[in-house]
């Protein structure tokens, strides 16, 4: 769209105040004018040396004198209630200090951004493994033994619901959409696809198990926790404990992966805090791996039906996406399966339905790219099926269905470049060499094939504050309660500040993960980099205004580079220019551009697979991801994020499946030996390409989320490649060998 008549400086006072509400696009692209030359560069992480030497401290590694250790006890019934707990017997075991249960324990973690306590069931049990007690002892060995032998009497209900296939379903209001005459579109179409897909339960399985160390000083609680969103977590923790949030401090300088599972306060934090209060000593609770699987968020299994109606050129006339998912009773989260389907492709007649089964199995919540990660497996497979049906190249089919405006809300898109991703990727991957006829390439015992899929993930801006201090000695400090869960926050915030303030990267210190610092957005929903980055940028803009004043030039004329300010006819080192530190808070708020423009990151995945002609085992041989996600803040950490997403795509396509026994809802394979996350040998060297893009509607740094874009659609490129290799269309994920074996060509 033409932006020339919009005044980019309409909120120009943000250069004085450091505050901006994103009501209008910001076309000034100030970061592009800066001179330091560190933004977007592949710079190494400043926290790297700490991580590779084991010096970075994670939650469970907080030290305190007199530390006691707690171990959570999970329910061994799926539904019912705790009648009694034999505390006396436990207390007689060596080293046992206390058994904690009762009204305040959490049933499951808070959903992301809940900002209040999750359900506190007071002994009511809703799923196997639900934490019902915490046993605390002098040592971990004693606590573990006492926890596993703790005698609990339950009253079991016989009306548990365990099988999503036969469970009654709710149809949530506001999620059912019927636009145009979809049935007519299907009837009149030259070609249709009507396919059912299933995806299994998955788990985030971050390498660091969820852990909390709780310590009280009077009424003041300090919790070293492994959490993603401290601004919400402190409220959730305070609400769970029934105390004032002013008395809660959460520290999370390093978080060993989250992927959604550490968005909301979890049972171990509340249990540790209760025990530490009662025992008047610090208590550490680190979940066992099994407990991580059982009591943190799972991704809901999905059953999906995608219907496509197209004319003979492949243009979509209609599109429908039906989703059936599950969660615990009284849990608000519904896996937003069709999130990307709403805006990715056109087709005037559209239908969306959702249904939710209430099951007595572990809690469902956000797992990396909730919605897109599973929904695009179905949508992008269906598009491949349509392309095959119409004998149209899958890339051409997608290009023919890119709408001008959002096909449901009719609002314009912000920067997109979806076609560029597909075309550039095709060139780089060698798509032209593809053989369209399935099962036409064989090397020894392996069938070889290639596949493509689109990627799309909505972009969000979250409110964020950051405090930046520029010191006269040419150093700067960035402070926010934002977290770095491996995403590179330490690095990119330092790069933004260094670029804006004209400092070498090593002169900028970033302090994160302390709930007493200015409230950032937290890490989740791929909004962290652009939201916290914008607040750092805004703080720096305001600092620049002050520096310009000190130098006696207009802010637009100021150049900051290597600690030297230049403007007008003046040139001074910061040390000579500043009397003392300049501290400034930056504050970004989402505004009208999020409502009036459909914002998303886009991409294209290309995969080459080999399918064993004897066993049906699939190995990924090559993979390329091309992404357009606004300004790339650090090409190296951004690439690592994309690698992560693409490899999760491999896991989702080929291995990952958490089984619940439908007789009692218990988790069958809740460990890392049998829940198969990808290992090093599953992953070929991956290729990532970024498309240069500035999204002026997104935020003043023109950057968009990338952490979840890389997984969106990735798995579909792999199953589409399996189809190209063998002619076998796997619609029940993951594509394990047993699903391919019966249909392999001779």
């Amino acid at each position, binding site marked *: 769209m033409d932006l020339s008549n919009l005044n980019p400086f309409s909120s120009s006072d943000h250069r004085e105040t450091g505050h901006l509400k994103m009501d209008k696009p910001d076309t000034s692209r100030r970061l592009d004018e800066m001179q330091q030359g560190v933004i977007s560069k592949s710079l190494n992480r400043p926290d790297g040396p700490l*991580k590779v*030497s084991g010096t970075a401290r994670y939650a469970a590694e907080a030290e305190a004198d007199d530390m006691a250790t707690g171990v959570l006890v999970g329910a061994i019934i799926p539904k019912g209630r705790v009648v009694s707990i034999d505390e006396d017997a436990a207390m007689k*075991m060596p080293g046992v200090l206390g058994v904690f249960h009762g009204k305040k324990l959490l049933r499951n973690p808070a959903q992301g951004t809940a900002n209040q306590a999750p359900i506190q069931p007071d002994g009511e049990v809703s799923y196997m493994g639900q934490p019902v007690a915490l046993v605390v002892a002098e040592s971990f060995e004693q606590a573990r033994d006492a926890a596993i032998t703790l005698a609990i009497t339950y009253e079991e209900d016989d009306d548990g619901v365990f099988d999503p296939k036969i469970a009654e379903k709710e149809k949530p209001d506001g999620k059912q959409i019927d636009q145009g005459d979809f049935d007519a579109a299907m009837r009149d179409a030259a070609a249709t696809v009507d396919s059912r897909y299933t995806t299994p339960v998955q788990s985030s399985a971050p390498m660091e198990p969820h852990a909390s160390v709780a310590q009280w000083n009077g009424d003041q609680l300090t919790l070293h926790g492994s959490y993603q969103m401290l601004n919400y977590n402190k409220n959730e923790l305070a609400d769970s404990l029934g105390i004032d949030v002013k008395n809660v401090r959460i520290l999370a300088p390093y978080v060993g992966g989250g992927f959604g599972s550490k968005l909301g306060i979890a049972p171990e934090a509340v249990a540790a805090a209760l025990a530490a209060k009662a025992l008047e000593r610090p208590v550490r609770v680190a979940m066992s791996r099994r407990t991580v699987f059982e009591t943190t968020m799972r991704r809901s299994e999905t059953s999906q039906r995608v219907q496509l109606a197209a004319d003979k050129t492949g243009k979509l006339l209609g599109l429908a996406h039906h989703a059936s998912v599950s969660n615990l009773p009284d849990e608000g989260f519904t896996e937003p399966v069709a999130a990307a389907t709403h805006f990715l492709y056109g087709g005037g007649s559209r239908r969306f339905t959702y249904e939710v089964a209430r099951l007595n199995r572990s809690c469902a919540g956000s797992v990396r790219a909730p919605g897109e990660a599973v929904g695009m497996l179905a949508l992008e497979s269906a598009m491949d099926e349509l392309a095959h049906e119409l004998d149209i190249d899958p890339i051409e089919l997608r290009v023919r269905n890119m709408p001008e405006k959002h096909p449901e809300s009719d609002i314009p898109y912000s920067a997109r470049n979806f076609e560029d991703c597909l075309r550039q990727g095709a060139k780089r991957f060698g798509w032209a060499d593809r053989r369209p006829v399935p099962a036409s390439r064989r090397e020894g015992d392996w069938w070889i094939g290639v596949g493509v899929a689109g990627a799309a993930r909505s972009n969000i801006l979250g409110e964020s504050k950051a405090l930046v201090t520029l010191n006269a000695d040419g150093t700067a400090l960035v402070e926010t309660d934002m977290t770095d869960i491996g995403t*590179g926050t330490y690095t990119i915030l330092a790069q933004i500040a260094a670029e804006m303030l004209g400092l070498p990267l090593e002169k900028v210190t970033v302090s994160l993960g302390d709930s007493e610092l200015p409230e950032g957005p937290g890490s989740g929903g791929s909004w962290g980099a652009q939201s916290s980055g914008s607040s750092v940028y805004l703080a720096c803009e305001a600092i620049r205004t002050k520096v310009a004043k000190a130098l006696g030039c207009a802010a637009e004329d100021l150049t900051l580079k290597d600690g030297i300010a230049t403007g007008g006819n003046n040139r001074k080192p910061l040390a000579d220019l500043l009397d003392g530190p300049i501290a400034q808070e930056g504050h970004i708020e989402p505004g009208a551009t999020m409502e009036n423009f459909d914002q998303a990151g886009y991409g294209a995945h290309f995969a080459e697979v080999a399918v064993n002609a004897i066993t049906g085992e699939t190995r990924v041989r090559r993979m390329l991801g091309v992404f357009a996600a606004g300004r790339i803040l650090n090409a190296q950490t951004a690439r690592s994020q994309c690698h*992560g997403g693409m490899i999760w795509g491999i896991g989702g396509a080929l291995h990952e499946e958490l089984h619940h026994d439908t007789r009692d809802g218990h988790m069958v394979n809740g460990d890392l030996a049998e829940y198969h996350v990808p290992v*090093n*040998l599953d992953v070929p060297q991956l290729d990532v390409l970024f498309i240069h893009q500035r999204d002026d509607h997104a935020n003043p740094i023109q950057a968009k989320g990338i952490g979840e874009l890389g997984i969106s659609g990735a798995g579909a490129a792999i199953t589409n490649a399996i189809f190209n290799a063998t002619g076998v269309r796997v619609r029940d994920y993951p594509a394990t060998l047993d699903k391919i074996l019966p249909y392999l060509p001779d």
Partner: protein
Amino acid sequence: MANSPRPIAMIETTLTINGTRHEVNADPRTTLLDALRHHLGLHGTKKGCDHGQCGACTVMVDGERINSCLALACMHDGDEITTVEGLGQPGNLSPMQDAFVRHDGYQCGYCTPGQVVSATAMLGEAKRGWPSFVSDDLDTDVALTTQEISERMSGNLCRCSAYPGIVNAILDADGQQPEGEAGAEIVNLVLEGAQ
């Protein structure tokens, strides 16, 4: 289900860790991993699963990499242990640690100490001519290709999935050419005149 009727007798164990002798007086149930983390304040070695299924706890015992979560401390009385802290510290990183930083061979960092120790020991195994499951010919010495590295490092899970960076870091530390440069290309279609 009976309570333990007897008090737990502690066991005195001598461990030489990163060249320093330590006496640990602990419950016999204490794993080498928990001895490091809970008794000796060496938190660099991580607990990811406690069941030998992730590799985050990898240490070297007398030069060989093992999962310290599946080892009782008392069974290693007198052994020489090397943990990630013993390989190098900020300002004085080992070549492997430094390569992990330069190739972004990590994200959250939690599996990283295990990866670094495992990779360091793995290079030693390769130098001794140990084959792997993906070696074509077991009779000859094996070149450490990317596939060989990936197979030999498959005992170290990384959920952030930094595997490409990890492999490049190891190639680099082994004196080989990594695949591709650090970072990713950002293609500017406007400047290139495309589209």
